[in-house]
């Protein structure tokens, strides 16, 4: 049995009377890629944001590398240095250039020297095809470039895993590929990853498991070939029917 990176145990959460997560339990092994898919309102984003504590939970427990995320005694900042997070809206710091965006956390959180952080950042930016953008400001970049900078920013912390919350849904269609390529490249290094996505072919191609969610519940956790060819639940069949044949 592979080492477990993230363990989700009986997690529930409500917004008022609306139950957005209903007793969810499953494990994500190390070096695997899990894709969360499902219709909107299924709870995918809430769950992925709960994994690094950006969302609280009402019941249950989430363990990252054996440490309880929502335990008050946990040093959440320290834990988060191991968990990269890339959101759909990039959220680059507009007052800093690309290099500043990538080096800010390593310098202030990991206490890396400026020079060391700079070199690491340039290497990562180079690997993502952004070497010539180091001195640009976010607003001078395309959406695809901005999202790749956000990925570089997450990678610069040397995280053990990266969470992607709909990384391509704010992008123009012609810019999606460059971002997916960057994520693919990252997957090939054996990084543990969770990707909330609507890109079905991408999910089929890179992930070990599809986690299909609907109305706060996980309905299926299956390998992609099986999920796309022979979904177990009626709801998944319906969902696939809608998005694959529109």
């Amino acid at each position, binding site marked *: 049995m592979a080492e477990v990176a993230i363990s989700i145990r009986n997690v529930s959460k409500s917004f008022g009377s609306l139950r957005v997560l209903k007793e969810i339990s499953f494990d994500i092994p190390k070096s695997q890629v899990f894709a969360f898919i499902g219709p909107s309102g299924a709870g995918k984003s809430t769950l992925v944001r709960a994994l690094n504590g950006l969302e609280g939970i009402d019941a249950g427990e989430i363990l990252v590398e054996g440490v309880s995320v929502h335990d008050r005694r946990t040093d959440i900042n320290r834990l988060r240095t191991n968990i990269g997070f890339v959101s759909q809206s990039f959220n680059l710091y507009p007052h800093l250039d690309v290099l500043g965006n990538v080096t800010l956390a390593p310098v202030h*959180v990991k206490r890396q020297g400026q020079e060391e952080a700079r070199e690491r950042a340039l290497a990562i930016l180079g690997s993502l095809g952004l070497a010539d953008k180091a001195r640009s400001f976010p607003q001078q970049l395309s959406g695809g470039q901005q999202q790749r900078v956000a990925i570089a920013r997450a990678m610069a912390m040397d995280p053990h895993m990266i969470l992607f919350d709909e990384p391509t849904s704010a992008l123009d269609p012609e810019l999606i590929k460059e971002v997916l390529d960057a994520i693919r490249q990252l997957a090939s290094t054996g990084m543990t990853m969770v990707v909330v996505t609507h890109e079905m072919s991408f999910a089929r191609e890179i992930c070990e498991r599809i986690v299909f969610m609907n109305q706060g519940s996980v309905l299926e956790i299956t390998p992609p070939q099986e999920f796309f060819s022979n979904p177990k639940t009626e709801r998944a069949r319906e969902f696939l029917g809608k998005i694959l044949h529109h």
Partner: protein
Amino acid sequence: MRRLVTALTLLLFLALPSSALTASPGILAWGGDTEGGAPYMFQDPRDLERLIGYEVEIVEALAEKMGLKPRFVQNGWDNLIPGLERHLYDVSIDGLEITPEHQDVVDFSMPYYVTHLQIGVRRDNFDIGSLEDCRGRIVGTLKQSYSQYVLETVGDVDIRTYEDEVNAYSDLVNGRLEATLFDAPIALYYGGPMREIKFVGPEIGRIEYGIAVRKGEEELLRTVNRALTELRDSGELRSILERWNLWNSLTARALQDYGPARTEPVMYTRWVADLQPELTWQDRINRYLSFLPTLGRAALTTMKVSLASMTLAIALGLILALLRVFGPKPLSTLSMLYVEIIRGTPVLIQLFFIFYGLPNVGIRLDPFTAGALGLGLNYAAYEAEIYRAGLLSVPKGQMEAALGLGMTRNQALHHVVVPQAVRLVLPPVTNDFISLLKDSSLVSVITLVDLTKAYGQLATTYYDYFGTGLVVAAIYLLLGLPFVRLARWTEAKMALALGLPGKGKKRPSGLDLRLF
């Protein structure tokens, strides 16, 4: 950031001169208001560095008799008595009337001068010859003065009150007023030299000027009275009053001196001569150039007070805004209360409270500290609201992105949220500085001589509100101009740095120092 704030606060306090409020041995510190003008005390039109006036001469003679060195302390006329209680000076002399209200709060020496009120009208007016004739007429006088009180008791007089007698007499000449009622010395010096004006009617009322001393300082009061008596007996007091053309029958009676005049009214003659020279343009320019040292010092005070208070306002405002937006509930509420209370009360009252009120609980601040503190604490409330808007306009995702990378909340605020908020608010904050520069004129109420105060002094000295006003306005503009430029530059730069729509396309590389 905490380091920055500490440094700024420290800087602020280092910049402050140490307090020099306590009475010094061998010195007679006396309070007066140079803006009160002739003949009481005013800057010598022939040498602006010199203070002249019959009361200046009396104080100097008095101090000599007492064996002390006189030291003048400037304070606004309205605040001369609070300033005395505040220990800014030992005695106050500036046409302070011996009235029961005044005697409730301070003690007075024996009167050194007695005078009356005088009605003035235009030379072609033959309808008004007494106080009773003023019924139904428009009459000008000094704000909150004895003459205002007298006019009120007449009844049915349309009273217009003025801060400066000069303006009242101009309005009498140009027809806005039908009559004026002023203390006779003021009438003599400001109405007297005007050909269009004549004085009518009898001597009205009785005004006694005395030297004010803090209650309970009986030893000082005795010494002052003894010195005054010596001045009276030696004839020096009369000689001073005659030089200024102020000797009258009321004073003669009060001082028991009925002899014939002995001294020529040289100072009055000199005043009248200085008042009406035919100025060439060259003279005019030379006169305004001679203002520059006085105005320069005043501008420096204005600038120093403004910079110190803005530094405080910026630092404290940021702390208040951070507490309000990100602080725990009790601190957030406190911050809100601070802002509401400070914004809801006039800054003038806050200045008074800090300077004249706090000494009651043992906190004695020198005028500069009090002024910078008062304006700074006040503006901090406004800056806090600007910062708050700035902090709230930084998207939530920014904080999340920083937290997601393992930064603490404080690190995220320090490196991500606050820098963006500060950039957003720089233009409005810079604009606020420009209005602070002008509001700083309020510090004249706590004895500082800033630009506005200097304007009042010079304008009274030369009877020239127009030209002096233009010169002072130009100086205010010059002081504000760099900040207007800075506001525009930051606006352009911030628009670019934050991806906001702005006018400038290229990234400004440095501060452009050209004006306009």
